[in-house]
């Protein structure tokens, strides 16, 4: 989000990531914490998707379980009127959405979520330690995304490559998710 800005007297607040210092994984499934990103939860009616896509510079997907990426932004279909838009770094997403001029709801959730990157040949197996979805490439191809459950928490899962996933999770659930991923990654390596 805004890392620069007006300064007066006191220091500019430093950022503490929820999973700072976490590391883990196995030879089959590496776990990394994703760098901070800007995120909005975007809600809009079908007729306004075009305008918002234009304003955001990324096409909001309308097909379930799909995502699209352009210009450093990724839009994930979460529901028929709901997208999670993720931008690398400071992307000005709220303003971009506003510029569309169409009816929508955008809520900044950059800090609500954090992300864990899972990669390696056992990535799907590691996630399947807690996720009940079919993560075969046929059912969950590269680019597929879905809100789902992981053990006892909710996640948003995005397949970024054949052997790589991004796991978006609410911050207070992130150490649980990371812990379970560690166990899943270990088991996936056996």
């Amino acid at each position, binding site marked *: 989000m805004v890392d620069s800005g007006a300064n007066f007297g006191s220091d500019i607040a430093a950022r503490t990531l929820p999973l700072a210092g976490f590391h883990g994984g196995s030879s089959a499934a590496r776990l990394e914490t994703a760098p901070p990103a800007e995120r909005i939860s975007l809600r809009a009616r079908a007729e306004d998707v075009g305008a918002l896509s234009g304003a955001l510079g990324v096409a909001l997907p309308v097909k*379930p*379980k799909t995502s699209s990426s352009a210009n450093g932004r990724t839009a994930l279909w*979460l*529901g*028929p009127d*709901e997208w999670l838009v993720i931008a690398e770094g400071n992307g000005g997403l709220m303003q971009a959405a506003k510029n569309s001029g169409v009816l929508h709801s955008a809520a900044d959730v950059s800090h609500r979520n954090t992300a864990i990157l899972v990669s390696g040949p056992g990535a799907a197996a590691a996630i399947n330690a807690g996720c*009940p979805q079919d993560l075969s490439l046929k059912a969950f191809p590269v680019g597929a995304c879905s*809100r*789902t*459950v992981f053990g006892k928490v909710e996640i948003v899962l995005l397949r970024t490559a054949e052997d790589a996933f991004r796991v978006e999770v609410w911050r207070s659930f992130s150490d649980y998710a990371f812990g379970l991923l560690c166990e899943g990654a270990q088991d996936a390596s056996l």
Partner: protein
Amino acid sequence: MLLIHCPYCEEDRSELEFRWAGEAHIARPENISAISDEEFAEFFFLRNNEKGLTYERWRHIHGCGRFFNAARDTVSDRFLMTYKAGMPKQPVPETGASEKTVETYEATEGDAR
């Protein structure tokens, strides 16, 4: 663990992603503040609790977040169909309706063929 077809996600998903939300097609009275105590009790408390075909609501709470409707056989737990919220009550498909309910546990306990 049930397998539920979400009409918005257009896919079968595990029950773990869903939350049951009670009987379907119970409209909140438009003039709710004017209805009688009996009518209110009926609206708020009375449910059909069918043994057999039931219409119910689910929410894909850990998926697309949408509420939707389902027709299910409460004896076999088979889903006959699911459809989007706001749609009128759907007739169950022919195959589902004509299919005889398989009532196993209770039946076999007393009587096998």
